[in-house]
């Protein structure tokens, strides 16, 4: 066991910290899930890219630095510590890119990775459908083989920031005779293609970034099939494992959130009774536990061990911790907590209520926590499926 950073890592942290201190906008950007905020965030992605901080762990040829997983963790810690903007590119860089690296053709990598790293092309996730939420196998959108590609029909929904994205990746049924998990293919498609209609749907927290995407005889080229035809399930499972696991929610995010909570408590000491102090302490312990556990997980990954179903444990842990952190803040704020946005009396511009609402999506998206607990109990503990 060695829980120290080496000189290179310290140096990397120092560079990142300095760069962030100089570049993170002094005023928080408007939410990236609004039209105006999205464009500002896209500019921020470009700023990151220009200093090769948008995808530090990618190979240099695609705009990265070939950073180690440890350096990535350090980058994330510093990024959240600095209160830097949300990553509107995250669906692309954290969910699609690992799949492209693993399953993509050389041509696909050449075509898609750099514009993604630069933030020019923004990717939406096309998993859910009106009748397929956590149950991805219930997907009904279908693609029929035509010359040189596929004709796609159907509807995707709950596509985060879909209203502002340029592209979409997701699963489509290519063999209707096969049941559930079979006969699905992973496709990538531009959203401005003929036959594709995007309809924005406003979210709970007031942001309009959700979208429904309708396909009516839209054409997708054979070049945009990711992985094998009818083999989309395995490809998708690799994605959801990333989403549930390490990459989407780095410990730095929650460590930073708890630090903000401590700061809130320090600013409103009269609102901090012993119960709230105890709750904040437990939240801090939880964030520490998540951080320490991540060190273990990264070590395992570097040792070549697979993480697999354990990523479901991660997803349950961080998503429920995130809800608790925000619940504590709202408890502390009391009646002030309902004030949001431009309210003169809103604390932190209503960010805690906004963050609470966002946190509530954590136990739902990327497979509900009920599904994750099924996965943990069946695949890790070995309990019977039925």
């Amino acid at each position, binding site marked *: 066991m060695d829980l120290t950073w080496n000189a290179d890592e310290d140096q990397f942290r120092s560079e990142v910290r300095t760069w962030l201190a100089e570049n993170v906008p002094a005023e928080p950007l408007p939410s990236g899930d609004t039209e105006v905020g999205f464009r500002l965030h896209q500019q921020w992605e470009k700023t990151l890219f220009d200093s090769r901080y948008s995808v530090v762990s990618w190979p240099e040829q695609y705009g990265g630095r070939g950073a180690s997983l440890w350096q990535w963790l350090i980058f994330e810690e510093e990024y959240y510590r600095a209160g830097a903007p949300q990553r509107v590119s995250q669906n692309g860089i954290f969910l699609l890119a690992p799949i492209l690296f693993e399953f993509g053709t050389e041509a696909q990598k050449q075509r898609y990775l750099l514009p993604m790293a630069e933030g020019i092309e923004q990717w939406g996730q096309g998993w859910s459908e009106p009748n397929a*939420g956590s149950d991805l196998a219930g997907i009904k959108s279908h693609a029929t083989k035509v010359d040189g590609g596929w004709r796609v029909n159907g509807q995707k929904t709950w596509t985060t920031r879909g209203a502002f994205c340029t592209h979409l990746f997701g699963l489509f049924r290519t063999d209707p005779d096969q049941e559930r998990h079979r006969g699905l293919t992973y496709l990538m498609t531009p959203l401005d293609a003929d036959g594709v209609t995007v309809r924005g749907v406003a979210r709970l927290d007031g942001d309009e970034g959700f979208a429904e995407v309708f396909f009516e005889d839209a054409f997708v080229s054979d070049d945009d099939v990711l992985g094998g035809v009818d083999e989309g399930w395995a490809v998708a499972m690799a994605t959801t494992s990333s989403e549930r696991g390490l990459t989407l929610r780095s410990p730095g995010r929650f460590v930073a959130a708890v630090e903000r909570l401590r700061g809130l408590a320090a600013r409103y000491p009269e609102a901090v009774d012993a119960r709230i102090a105890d709750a904040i302490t437990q939240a801090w312990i939880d964030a520490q536990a998540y951080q320490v556990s991540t060190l273990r997980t990264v070590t395992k990954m570097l040792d070549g061990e697979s993480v697999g179903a354990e990523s479901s444990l991660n997803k349950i842990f961080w998503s429920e911790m995130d809800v608790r952190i925000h619940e504590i803040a709202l408890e502390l704020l*009391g009646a002030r907590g309902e*004030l949001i946005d*431009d309210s003169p009396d809103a604390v932190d511009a*209503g960010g805690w209520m906004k963050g609470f609402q966002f946190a509530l999506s954590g136990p*739902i998206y990327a497979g509900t926590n009920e599904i994750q607990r099924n996965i943990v109990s069946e695949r890790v503990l070995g309990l019977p499926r039925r």
Partner: protein
Amino acid sequence: MRFAFTEDQLLFTSAVADLLADKYPAERVRAAWDTPTEAPDDRSVWQQLADMGVVGLLAPESTGGMGLGALDLHGLLVESGRVAMTEPIVETAAVAVPVLAAAGHSALASVIAGEQTVAVGFADDPVVRVDTDLLLLEHGGTWYLAETAAVTATPQTSVDGSRRLASIEWTPTPGHALPGDIAAARDRAIVAQSAQLVGLARHLLDETVAYVQVREQFGKPVGAQQAIKHKLADVLLAVDYAGPMVARAAHSIDEGDPDASVHASMAKCSAADAAKLAVRHGLQSHGAIAYTVEYDLHMWMKRVWALAAQWGTSAEHRDRVRQHLGL
């Protein structure tokens, strides 16, 4: 000993429920969200409630009211919560009307008649609803009645976009002072707010049950999943035990029970906690659809978040009970 509502109470509640089922669809709540700078101008439902006697229910018959009590109002407030009624029924009917009546104030008649509404504010919390005609404002332990248009209001935005809030500046003048028991009014507000929260929780539970009965995943209704079943059973448990606590507190107010304040605090934390659980499990059981503003449920959820912290959070009320217990 008898813990049940009277036939009169049940009939009145049922009449109000019928009216609201008819006249207060979700679109009406949505309309209140969509006109963010002024109060909803359609007062017909409020007028009908006033005509039925709901608004003046707590005022003596001699002043044009019904001369009834907090327990008579209880069921009506639950129904107002169930439809997420936006109008200030708690503030006007449960708090202001008895204050105006006790003070013999001339505004009482028009309030009871449904012509004017009243919101309530305290000096230690400058944020009040301003989508009313009048403001009943506490200052230095005394009530003052002001016209809403006459105070300097800085708008504040609530997560619950159907209620217009503002921080206000005003100068109390002796001419606007009203005699009245602040603590008793606060207890009435707490219990009334609790009743609304029970109604909000019941609606959230009912809607969630209805949704999971039909929404299918993995080849069966989501509601057949034991994890969902048990979450919703927990919501029912919380709501089912909170309801009687609120009714008991209303009864204690009517009877002048020396523990009425403690009963009110228990009512509030039970109802607020039940409603918050109904939101949490309701959202989780729905999944992403309840995360959109196109789906109506968010208006109920946000109302719960806002009201659960009004008139004292659960923690504050538990603390009041703790002090009563000498712990």
